């Protein structure tokens, strides 16, 4: 019954003290929030910690949510600020992630793949890998745009930027992603030969 309710209705119920309604909201948005956190943290355990933190923060300040934007946009702005704080705390060298010669840390992420068997790797695997090689901001914009059903204006709101800046960043992120995907695939072809 609750799965058919809108986010706004679930929020209203949560505010009257119905915790089951909030659990439904968490279930609804957890995959996206977790994926977004993973774009910043790169490690599943850290991403899960960030995502959990975001939902708890959102619950605490749900009363201040005025409903002028989508709940998802509001939630993603919490994810963005929480993830940025996390990065600052952990002092992750974000610049080095974009370095072509640097291998990314991918822990417990390829359980479905045999990473040593190049033949098993699909194009989507390389795309996923290329996204993880992007700068966190670029990866987050790509994820929000394609998977979060967010417009440029909503992404700008969530990230505290101008819509035009997001548009430029999205274009550059797609260019980088295209280059990285091509490079990864070329590298793989060389390995196979």
């Amino acid at each position: 019954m609750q799965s058919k309710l809108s986010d706004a209705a679930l929020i209203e119920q949560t505010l009257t003290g119905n915790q089951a309604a909030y659990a439904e909201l968490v279930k609804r948005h957890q995959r996206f929030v977790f994926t977004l956190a993973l774009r910043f943290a790169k490690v599943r355990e850290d991403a899960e910690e960030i995502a959990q933190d975001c939902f708890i923060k959102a619950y605490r300040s749900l009363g201040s949510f005025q409903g002028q934007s989508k709940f998802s946009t509001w939630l993603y702005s919490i994810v963005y600020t929480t993830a940025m704080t996390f990065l600052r705390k952990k002092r992750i060298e974000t610049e080095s992630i974009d370095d072509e010669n640097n291998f990314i840390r991918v822990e417990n992420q390829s359980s479905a793949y045999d990473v040593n068997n190049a033949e098993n790797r699909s194009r989507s695997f390389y795309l996923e890998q290329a996204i993880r090689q992007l700068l966190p901001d670029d990866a987050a914009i790509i994820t929000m745009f394609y998977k979060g059903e967010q417009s440029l204006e909503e992404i700008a709101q969530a990230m505290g930027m101008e819509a035009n800046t997001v548009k430029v960043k999205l274009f550059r992120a797609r260019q980088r992603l295209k280059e990285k995907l091509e490079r990864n695939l070329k590298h793989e072809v060389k390995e196979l030969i």
Partner: protein
Amino acid sequence: MNNTEERLWSYIDGNCPPEEQKAISELIRTDASVSALYQQLLSLNKEFAAVDLDEPSMAFTYNVMEVIRTENAQVPLKAAVNKRIIRGIGIFFSVTIVALLVLVIASVKWTGVALPANLTAHIKMPEINHNQARVFVQAFVFFDVMLGLYLFDAWLRRKKARSSEKMM
């Protein structure tokens, strides 16, 4: 080329003004290289949109709700008391104090007299004008009744919301 690519991405995203959209459509139709690039970007766009979301651990929702439940359980009783009740009590006392002050100030006879040498012997308590007092008392009681009704209505609404939740 970058400019063309940027324009093509805007075209794919549907962010172009109508004239620009027309111009790009024409370019795709007439220029083979632009058409090839468009097809490439279109297929990339599909791939980007098809990327799967990652799944958190099975116990994710449970863990979040457990933290929330624990936090709620740890809230001390004084903090758990409904803020509306506290606000209502606050309003009641504020109104009482203000009403009494107004009543007293309104009853004072503000006639200018020279201060006598022996001031304390000449001090008289102001006499309360009974007609004015009745008006103030009536206004005060009226306000209290309205406040009571407002709080009662709020309580009934909350009760109704809770019962409709249980029904779902």
